[in-house]
């Protein structure tokens, strides 16, 4: 039973080798061998799948600006909070 591509397919066939007198002829002229008889066996191995490589999307200018502004805003808030925390410590 043939399967989808990507599976390991092994063909085994039995054919009697011809005798020595034919060897010279074989060497001079290579002929492809397409067995018409014999067994075809398929070894079906389900392989595990890797996640695919990921191209990173470029960011639009708007998005960059938004992120920059948000970062700046968070920094200022953090600074102000730090300043507020330090003040009572001084008064103690």
């Amino acid at each position: 039973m043939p399967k989808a591509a990507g599976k390991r397919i092994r063909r085994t066939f039995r054919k009697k080798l011809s005798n020595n007198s034919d060897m010279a002829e074989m060497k001079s002229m290579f002929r492809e061998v397409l067995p018409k008889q014999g067994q075809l066996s398929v070894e079906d191995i389900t392989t595990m799948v890797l996640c695919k490589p990921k191209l990173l999307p470029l960011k639009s200018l708007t998005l960059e600006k938004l992120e920059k502004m948000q970062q700046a805003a968070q920094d200022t808030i953090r600074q102000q909070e730090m300043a507020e925390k330090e003040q009572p410590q001084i008064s103690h």
Partner: protein
Amino acid sequence: MGSEMEPLLLAWSYFRRRKFQLCADLCTQMLEKSPYDQAAWILKARALTEMVYVDEIDIDQEGIAEMILDENAIAQVPRPGTSLKLPGTNQTGGPSPAVRPITQAGRPITGFLRPSTQSGRPGTMEQAIRTPRTAYTARPITSSSGRFVRLGTASMLTSPDGPFINLSRLNLTKYAQKPKLAKALFEYIFHHENDVKTALDLAALSTEHSQYKDWWWKVQIGKCYYRLGMYREAEKQFKSALKQQEMVDTFLYLAKVYISLDQPVTALNLFKQGLDKFPGEVALLCGIARIYEEMNNISSATEYYKEVLKQDNTHVEAIACIGSNHFYSDQPEVALRFYRRLLQMGVYNCQLFNNLGLCCFYAQQYDMTLTSFERALSLAENEEEVADVWYNLGHVAVGIGDTNLAHQCFRLALVNNNNHAEAYNNLAVLEMRKGHVEQARALLQTASSLAPHMYEPHFNFATVSDKMGDLQRSYIAAQKSEAAFPDHVDTQHLIKQLKQHFAML
């Protein structure tokens, strides 16, 4: 020299050179001397606005509440190809997830990130709450608690004497009668203070004062309605503005309304009408391409992006999208040319070098691969970006057969971003090759819980469980994998096999 200049002129000069902080400071000094100086007042308002100005067309941040409780969509069960909510329904030209990774919302990853590409519409509450990996903050509960309000409050925190203009004390009727002042004031209220209701009041009074003849005010009212979620009212205003004066911006705003109403086909028609009036307009062409991309119709999207490039050959979004499309349709060498073009244009960041590295590797230009990745690592701005670069480097290592290096790369990706589901999955595959079944299973479980939208961890878990003889778990995982990627041949095969097993019992 500077101190001898007339202060208002100097402030103007600062404003034109986009040194808004300096301009605002100087205006503050002037206003302290003469509090009724209208020129200084308006200039300060404009400087403060420009500091936080973001193009309204690009903004689209939906909160969880808006998305889950969305009642605006006209058809709750839309026909295939007429909705943005069911990306899977349109299979014409859409890439398979076996080749191109998908986002949480089930769309193929895009080549370009805009504020609205982050939103996507998740199907369940659970998915909505999960932080999207590309946006660094969690999704807000409603858009009125979103990024803009936080920015607004932050800008007020920085000025120690309270806000520049006390909105509650403004006599809006008085300002509405001075059109020039009113326009600057409106932009200040809308962009800097994010007080949409007051802005709407001002706009309504002003448009009344102009006897409904000024299209600009109609567009502004429409913007306010849009922010308040009153899409039908916004649509009326934009249409009325378009009747008076056809502007590209108005077309874009109106299309945004239709997209919010989940009517992509109407939006497409509108864009095409706009193109009749403004032939070859890049913003309109790009709008069409974006809609096609969101509807998973990648081939049409690429056609329109190419049209964009014919008009404007430095359009970063178009180049990036076409490039990523080529990469995932097995033409990395063509993609490489597009990304190289971006580099020539002066884009210089982590993402671009990462993409260049990947394209180089798959186009067999090995000399540039590692240097590109090195540069990407050095340009990365945060840990998520570093993690993504290490993850891609892991692929290069797998490609050259160096499993130890690959193992280390995926580990480093996880060190930098502990929620990197793809890295967990690939690490599991490597562990499995070493024969560490239990570790692989644990990693796969983590991956599938982090990213239930990906089929890979489910399928791998099913395969591993099947090998170990745990058929029940294997079957459950295989079904999840089938739900994520219905056309996956191996999954179907596995399910068939398992069903045969169960039938024999």
